């Protein structure tokens, strides 16, 4: 398909979105990521029964934490995608890229830069 999508998107592979620990995502923000999104199987189609549903609730939880600490919950998102839907993958990448660009850089990074 070779659909183009923004090069800021970097993929980290995990066995199942149910494996996502809240810490993984918070760590990414701590390190300066401007946004993180999790892409799991379609709901009801989880290869491991219900991992994607757990991921969804964890993302919701992370969004609350991010809101509380002033980073902004919108920077973390959950998407569901079927493994054959390349066009949607590219679409999500563009969507997320635009959303984060609108929000601007991660405040933690700014703070670190100022401190330095």
């Amino acid at each position, binding site marked *: 398909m*070779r*659909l*183009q*999508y923004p*090069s800021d998107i*970097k*993929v*980290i*592979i*995990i*066995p*199942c979105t*149910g*494996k*996502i*620990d809240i*810490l*993984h995502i918070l*760590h*990414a923000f701590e*390190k*300066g*990521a401007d946004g993180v999104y999790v892409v799991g199987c379609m709901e009801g*189609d989880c*290869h*491991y*029964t*219900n*991992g994607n549903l*757990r*991921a969804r609730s*964890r993302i919701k939880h992370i969004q609350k934490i991010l809101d509380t600490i002033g980073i902004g919950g919108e920077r973390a998102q959950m998407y569901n995608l*079927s*493994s*054959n*839907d390349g066009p949607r993958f*590219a679409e999500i990448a563009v969507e997320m890229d635009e959303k984060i660009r609108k929000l601007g850089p991660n405040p933690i990074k700014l703070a670190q830069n100022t401190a330095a």
Partner: protein
Amino acid sequence: MSIRVGFYVCHCGINIAGKVRVEEVADFARKLKNVVIARDYKFMCSDPGQEMIEKDIREFNLNRVVVASCSPRLHEKTFQSACRRAALNPYFFQMASVREQVSWVTEDEDEATQKAKTLAAAAINRVNYHERLDDREAVVHPDIMVVGGGISGMQAALDIGNAGHKVYLVEKSTTIGGHMLQFDKTFPTLDCAACIGTPKMVDVVQNPNIELISYSEVTEVSGFIGNYTVKIRRKPRYVKEGVCTGCGECANVCPVSVPSEWDEGLGHRAAIYRAFPQAVPITFCIDKKDRAPCAIACPAGINVQGYVQLISQGKYREATRLIMERLPLPGVLGRVCPHPCESQCRRLEVDEAIAIRDLKRFAADHTNLTELEPPEIQECSEKVAVVGSGPSGLTVAYYLRLKGYQVTIYEALDVLGGMLRVGIPDFRLPSQVLDHEIDYILRLGVKTRTGVRFGSDLTLNDLKQEGFSAVFLGIGAHDSLDMHIPGEKDTQGVMDAVRFLRQVNLGDKTCPGRQVVVVGGGNVAIDTARAAKRLGAREVTVVYRRSEREMPAYAEEIEGAKNEEIRFFFLTAPVKILEKQGKVDGFECIRTKLGPPDASGRRRPLPVAGSEFVIPCDAVIPAIGQKTHAPWADREPDLIWSPRNTLKVNLRTMQTSIPYVFAGGDAVMGPATVIEAVAAGHKAVEAIHRYINGEDLDLYAKQVEVREQPGRDWQEIPDGLYRKSRAHPQHLDPKLSATSFDEVDLGLSESEAQREARRCLNCGLCCECMECVRVCEANAIDHRMKEKELEVKVGSIIIATGYDTIDPTPMKQFGYGKYPNVFTALEFERLSNATGPTGGEILIRDQNGELTRIPKRVAILHCIGSRDVNYHEYCSRVCCMYALKYAHLIHEKVGHDAQIFNFYIDMRCFGKGYEEFYERCQREGTHFIRGKVAEITDQAIKPEEHGKLITIAEDTLLGRSIRIPVDMVILCNAIQARSDAQEVGRIFGVNQGADGFFLEEHPKLGPLDTATDGVFLAGVCQGPKDIPDSVCQASGAAVKALALATRGKVEIAPIISWIDPDVCAGCQTCIDLCPYSAIEYNVRKGISVVNEALCKGCGSCAGFCPSGAAQVKHFNEKQIFAELEGIIDSLNSVGI
């Protein structure tokens, strides 16, 4: 030991190097921590590329390897093998995808190079934290399962069986063969599908290694590669496999006819059927749905659908015999039953309910009971007394006698029949009908004692003395209710309806008066009025206090009475009877209006003040209800009565307060219908039988109570069913009928009855008439067969579940379903097939819908639902070729003068011999028009178009629109995924692609594998393909499965969870999270432990473990953080 990383970036020709400056990436990597060597190379996956890695490992003592190239799905295993060859544990390898995730999807060269660098840095950082892991080895079960018995499934099963491995072939339908066996010829060689297909079917059934499990579906798959446990649901065939000889006698006698799925609805089959004569297994199968609603509605539980079907076949005696299994009085109920069955009849959804009662009467009238062989009775010595010879008593007597009991009926009157005899006049129920049916019951050996009145001549004690084990009281309700108005008691000319009808029925034909008023609105009132008319009353008036709508009498009786000039005063209530010299001299009434509904749900009549009026008359007959007359009640104190003056019983067993005494009919229910009395009789029969055999009746009553609700899975009502009006029996001319006691209703004629019976929709499909059981000499039929569940263990599974074709009905422009001579491809195959509905003649429908006409002009429309963004974007891949085959077959069978028009988009004749076949058809004179048909219409605008179907299209080669009139249109409708593909995919863990077909592991390099190891695909379930391709794929899948089975063991990736025992706090949260129940709690150590055999490595436990003790190997916290940090830390250094 220090970490020494080797990094390699692949050019992939220009695939990567065209966008990513690979040398720059290698230079960048070379400077990263622990990187000993960094190289770029044209094709890392090539032999020299792999050798380079192996050599470097040895030469530079590398203990980590990172390759930045394509997707790990493609070559991770390749490079892991290279590491293994160089004695490096393959899990010390990491791959960065710089083709699929970078060069192919990034426009800008700088951006691409930067991204490639970050991904390389991430992989290098991650590999630092990799740990040595060893593949686990599992034993592979040597047996293999193939799901689907079409050509692919058969081929795979045969290949496996021939290799000496056991194979289970599971087929959903009653026969193997699949779609291919529905075809006539096969392109391009024109082999007969049956000639090449049936030998394969026979091979399958004769191969000792193949266990064919037909008419079954897989319901559950558990386990993993090499060790699957499969649950299979075997649907009941109701015919025993191995016992059935396939003679087909059963189908000849089966009265049910439904459209045949095998013939695509063009032909019919019976409820007991076999798809086609060469079916494998040869065993017939009965198609049963839930019990028909009419039979559920029948209080007596008569198999209504069964006898209606038997009548449609002219088998009246068999119909009567079937009715008599639940009802000893078919002729009686065929006349007086309130037919609750008819209001449940689903034919009502089309037009009118089947005239079930009239059909019952017809069957009874056309059966000579004296010729009917009585059933064989196994005698037993216990005696049962039945008091009362009404419908409930006769039912109890008949069915207890059939069970062998010695039954004696005691009757107060001199004649038998109870209310049937003395309550219903002859013009509605002729006494001979009752006589014949009672005679039949008595022929079985039921003894009678008439003129013996219970209570005065006979007591319960007497019966006990005489040695009766049980007594049934069916004493009826033979006493009229009073109107409680002045003048009712002692005026001459007032006589209650029960007494009046009894006198009339016993032969006293005295006219009650010149002007007769009948009070009431039930059947008794109407019977009374009509009887009075027949006895010579000049004027008969029925007075009823509600409106006609509330009248409980049957509508046809009210209608008959009106025709006989009987007057009706509705909304009129009695006030008093006027008398003159002790005789009736008028009936004073008051008008009423309807108030709010009362307890019975009917609106309560309220008197309108001042509206009193007098009906002149000399006789008044109240018919307002009945009660049981039991002046002996005091002498039987143990028998408890309800406040409503009925006998108190347990309604499930009909047992009274005295254990050996049972009761039913009007004496229990109050005045009710005959069929309800029969129903009560059945309950009493079951209970008395159990009582005599010492069973606990209370327990039995509870069992009856919990009996499940009947299901509602009935045969679908076909679309476009012609409306046919209900048969109405002839009635006697009212002028004649009002003067004689001859039966008014003349019943249906034979042709009317058969036509009426054929209107039945066969809701239950099999009507359980048991004709098949009667003719089956092999005794192979068992209507009580139950579904079975089977469990087998296999090492691998091949899915070959095939395809459906798209229903072209929603594509209105092609007129399928609207114009009778528009056919689908599979329909044409059946039309052309020698075992099809026309015996292989290509015929189209005439104006009656019968296949009789020969088509001379035929349009074949390609790409119906394929290559169409509105339906399926893909090409169905076989249509062009079968369209050519059709053209050839039509020329061959109909004649070479036939004009055939192929409307195509592109001709795709790509296989061996295909192009040559195309040439041949062109030479045969088939017209090829490039263009898709826009519309099929019957609106002629030119004389030659009249009576034809006109195909309107654009010929895109000529660039002009055309109209071609034809006789027949064939739609090459698309192949599509099975409608249950999603469910099947879920069971086997196989995904569907966007097109709905099962998704292979890799479109080119893994077309037989799926995402689930040990589950393979074969045939069209993976995507449209022709027979040779399907067979190839089947053999390929068989080899894949055999490779596993013959090696006997398999490596399983060690990527599973592990709980660090030193860190685990024993909170057990992970135990609930694990979808495979793979974590157990070790009480002694107070920690949770992963069962490695069950763990699938999803990481659900690791995602939540509060202490971080649970980790997925190869995806542990350190490794993921390292990858993340690798990306982010490198961003600055690459200059973003």
